[in-house]
Structure formats: C-alpha cells, structure tokens
C-alpha cells in the first residue's frame, strides 16, 4: 500500500465507535508510515550518538539539532541578504531621482546588487547548471544513439570510444575543460559566465553515456514485425524514425535519461568544488575553508539538500517518463 491510497482512505474516513475498524486503520497507518519513520528515527539516533563521540578540529561533530539550527540560520541569512538587496536598490533609485531632479540631462546608470551568493542562490546556480549540462548531453546523445542503433557501421565506429570515455571521472576532465574553455570561449560580453560553461561541459561529458548507450540499444530492439509494417507502408526514413523507431526506444531511452540525470547531479557537485565554480559544491568548499565552529553543520545542511534535490530530480524524471511512456505500468 502506498501513501496516496492511505491519504485517500484517511480523508474518506468517518469516525465511528467501531473499535475493530479503528484498530484496522491504525494498523494500516503503521504499515505505510511505520517502517520509513522507524528507519529515520534509528538514523537520527545513531547520528546523535556518533556525533557526540567525534571530536574534530572544528569542534564536535554536529548532531541533528545543530544541523536543523544551521538550516534555519542559512534561511535567515538568505532573507537578510535579500532585504539588503532591496534596500540597496531603493537607495540607488533615490539617489538617481535626486540627481535627475537637479540635472535632467544626466543619463543614470543602474547597477545590480553584488552581495555574496547565499546558500539558496547557490542551489539555484547548481540546478541551472545541471539542467543545462543534462539538456546539452541529451540533445547530443539521443540523435547519436538513434544513428548508432540504426546503423551497425556507426555503432561499430562509435562504440569503442564510448567504452573508453564512459569510465572517466569528472575530476580528470575538469582541467582540460577549464583550459579549453578559457582558450576558446572568449567574448567581451559573454552570454554565460565562463565558470558556468566549464561546469556545464564537464557535466555533459560525464552524463552523456547512459542516454547514448540506452538509446542505441532501445533502437536496435525495434521488433522485426514493426520494421516490416514500415516497409510495407514504404515509410520514408524520417517518418520511420519518428513513428516506429523513437516510440519503440522511449522506454529504454528514459531509463538512460534518469541514470544520466543522477550522474549529472553527482558530477556537478564535485566539479563545482574543485573548480571553484559557483554552486553548492563551492558552498561546501568555502565552508570547509572557512573552518568556523558552524562549518560542519552548514556542510551537513548542504549534504542533505544535495540528496533531497537529487531525489526530487529523479522523481520529476519519473513523472515525465510516466507521461511519455506508452508501456502502461511498466515504469516503477
């Protein structure tokens, strides 16, 4: 039984004095929520116990309560920073208006607020980067995977390269990407910051493989019967790919996309940390370098946020997959 059916049952529940049905209901609640809650409680308990015994150079390891406190703190900092930004903008506007009143010909220059990015700004940057890298990887991997699936020659040509580059760690790519981007991406008025491009390309290089491999396998599994239907109808190459090949490959393709997005998120944090690109990874690194007594708690907040966001990203992909996938109930 899952949580949604439970909620539905609870909402339709009319209290009665029937002891049996009450018992039954409480047993159901325990069955659905009991195990996860018990697991969570055990984890928090173990964490608390372990934390008290670990003494680091930055003080004792933070327990769950310290971390929760720091999470609230980070939110407060974010709010404060936003208020400061609003105040800054107002003050600037006032000054401009005052000067314009004296000197109507003056052309005002409005500047944006350049305070330090908060934890939540860093989350936003990371999400944007990971989605950009993932989108870029998908845009390359899906067409290439289709070509590999349709042509044995293309598959034989590309497959060895895939096998060699697939296991390469993002940390190995990063210096190369950084240098290449610095050399190639030169512009006086860049649309994206250089660090964004470096992170995005590193993410792309690492997360492209599952989608590529799964798409090509999905395409090769198109049934011979459907190919025959296509031949009898004399479908053109493009129609054949669009009407027969792509839908056949969608289940496999989405499995690949989900794996890719998971890898993308994992890689991004490492890349940001190492390359000092803005984002959650940089937040973690900065806190580590900062070395205050709160640092460990703040890093733990980031760790939990990273996990939660990774989980949510996968759920979103799953929802999209359920919408697109024609195999009813095949997706779990």
């Amino acid at each position, binding site marked *: 039984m899952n949580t949604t059916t439970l909620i539905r049952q609870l909402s339709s529940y009319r209290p009665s004095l029937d002891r049996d049905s009450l018992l039954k209901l409480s047993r159901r609640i325990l069955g659905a929520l009991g195990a996860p809650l018990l697991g969570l409680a055990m984890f928090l308990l173990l964490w608390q116990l372990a934390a008290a015994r670990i003494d680091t150079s930055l003080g004792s390891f933070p327990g769950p309560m310290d971390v929760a406190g720091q999470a609230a703190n980070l939110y407060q900092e974010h709010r404060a920073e936003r208020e400061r930004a609003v105040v800054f903008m107002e003050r600037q506007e006032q000054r401009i208006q005052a000067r314009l009143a004296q000197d109507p010909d003056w052309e005002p220059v409005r500047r944006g607020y350049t305070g330090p990015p908060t934890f939540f700004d860093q989350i936003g940057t990371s999400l944007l980067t990971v989605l950009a890298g993932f989108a870029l990887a998908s845009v390359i991997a899906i067409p290439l995977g289709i070509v590999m699936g349709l042509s044995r020659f293309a598959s034989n040509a590309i497959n060895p390269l895939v096998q060699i580059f697939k296991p390469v760690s993002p940390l190995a790519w990063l210096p190369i990407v950084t240098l290449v981007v610095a050399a190639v991406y030169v512009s006086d008025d860049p649309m994206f910051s250089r660090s964004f491009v470096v992170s995005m390309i590193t993410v792309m290089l690492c997360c492209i493989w599952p989608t590529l491999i799964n798409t090509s396998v999905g395409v090769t599994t198109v049934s011979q019967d459907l190919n025959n239907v296509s031949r009898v*109808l004399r479908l053109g190459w493009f129609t054949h790919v669009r009407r027969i090949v792509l839908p056949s490959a969608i289940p496999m393709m989405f499995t690949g996309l989900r794996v890719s997005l998971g890898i993308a998120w994992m890689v991004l944090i490492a890349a940001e940390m190492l390359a000092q690109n803005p984002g959650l990874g940089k937040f973690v690194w900065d806190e580590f370098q900062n070395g205050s007594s709160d640092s460990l708690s703040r890093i733990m907040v980031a760790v939990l946020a990273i996990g939660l966001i990774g989980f949510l990203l996968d759920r979103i992909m799953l929802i999209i997959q359920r919408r697109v996938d024609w195999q009813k109930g095949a997706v779990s």
Partner: protein
Amino acid sequence: MKPLLDISSVSMRFPTPKGEFEALKDVNLKVNQGEFVSLIGHSGCGKSTVLNLVGGLYQATTGGIILDGKEVSEPGPERAIVFQNHSLLPWLSVWQNVELAVKEVFRGKKSRAEMRDWIEHNLDLVHMLHAKDKRPDEISGGMKQRVGIARALAMQPRLLLMDEPFGALDALTRAHLQDTLMEIQRELNNTVIMITHDVDEAVLLSDRIVMMTNGPSATIGEILNVELPRPRNRIALADDPTYNHYRHDVLSFLYEKQRKVEPFSRRRKASAPSETCTAQA
C-alpha cells in the same frame, strides 16, 4: 484471362553458416483477380517464405513474381500483409494505427475528411469502430487481429496477404473472425493469399487450396479447387459430403503423402527453434 499474380519458377536459398539452405524450389502459381487462395503445409515447408516473397520482404534467388504486369521487387501497400501477431504499433490507438497506413497510402489523393471516412469505414467493416480509441494492449487478441485486417484493407491492396492471421487465437474467436472475413470478402471480393495450418479454415474460406510439400526444397505438391457455393455456412457444411470430401483430400495430403517424419529425439527439440528450415528470421 490474364492472372493478377504470376509466381514463376521461384526458388529461394538462404545463406547459413553451414552453407546454403534451399527453402523453396521451383514454385509456380497463378492467382486470378478475386480469388481466395490458401497455402497449407507442415511448419517449415516454406509457406511463409512464399508469402514474404510475394510481399517483397524477401527477394527470390531465381525466378520472378509479377503482379499486374509489374515485377515485385520491394514491399508496398498494394500488397498489404496481415501479420500473424497483428504487428500493431503499441503506442498508437486503434484509430491511429489505421490512420498511419491511410495517411501514407492516400497522401495527396484523399482529403482529410475522406481519409477520416475511409478509416471509419474500414474499422466498421471489421466491427471495431466501438474501440477506436483503445490501445492495442487494452483489447483482446482477436480484436487486435481485426484491427490488423482493417489496417491492411485500408491500404486498398491489389492483393491481400495473410500470414496465419488466426493462428494465435482460440477456436471460438477464430471461427468468429473467419465469418467476418467471409462477410468482408463477399462485399469487397479481394484477391487473397492466406497461409494456414488449419484444414477446416482452408476448406471453408478458399477457392483454391495450395498444398506444399515438406522442406527443404519445398514446392507446391497439389492444388485443390474448392467448388462449394458461397455464402458458406460452417454449420451447414459440417454435414456436407462435398465439404468432407475436400477436407479428406487435404488431410490425406498432409498426413499420408507428406507425413512429417521426424525421429522422436529431434521432435523433442522441435519445441525449441528447430524451425530453422523456415528461415524466416
């Protein structure tokens, strides 16, 4: 009268790791306009190979196939095929499956409204209009096969090829579909080549039954003209001496003249894909 389809001295050899395998040898058959021809024979006798050759999915090693004065060299909608396992696109609804074929075949020849009417007409013909928005996995096997037939008919083929269309269905559903097919035939008078394993089906539906010898190097053994008046009624025919005589002829060809002799040990393996000799990968 010039035949619609002329299969002349067709042989088919498939390359295998153990050398060439000759599936068909010297097959000759002429089919007239409006004729319903069944191909019957044991599994592995190359029936499907004949159908795939006429359908253009295979190319004959020697000999040639002429339809309407033109040599068959590739598949095409004028030789629509009803596949054994329906081969509907699982991600399209019943309507969309037929629509895909209609759009491809009548592009530029029919208007949008005409196409819609034509799809509707063909689904109605097989009594499937009520399920037009269902997906293939939401309807039964018999219904899927009906849609497969509607799709093939919607291509308005010169020749309708059916590869054991009812082979995977239970006996009652099969009988029902055979009746539907006879009803459609009465209306459209299509030229049909159908592969079957089923002696009753062959006699009930066909004008001619082509009986094939066992492979390798299979060819046409005998041809039986079925001169039963139409419309045919399966219940009335059950006691009909002529019907039973035809039935007997086919049975004796299959089980006496062309008895499949296989040693027991081989037959046990036959449940595995020992049908290599059909070579219909």
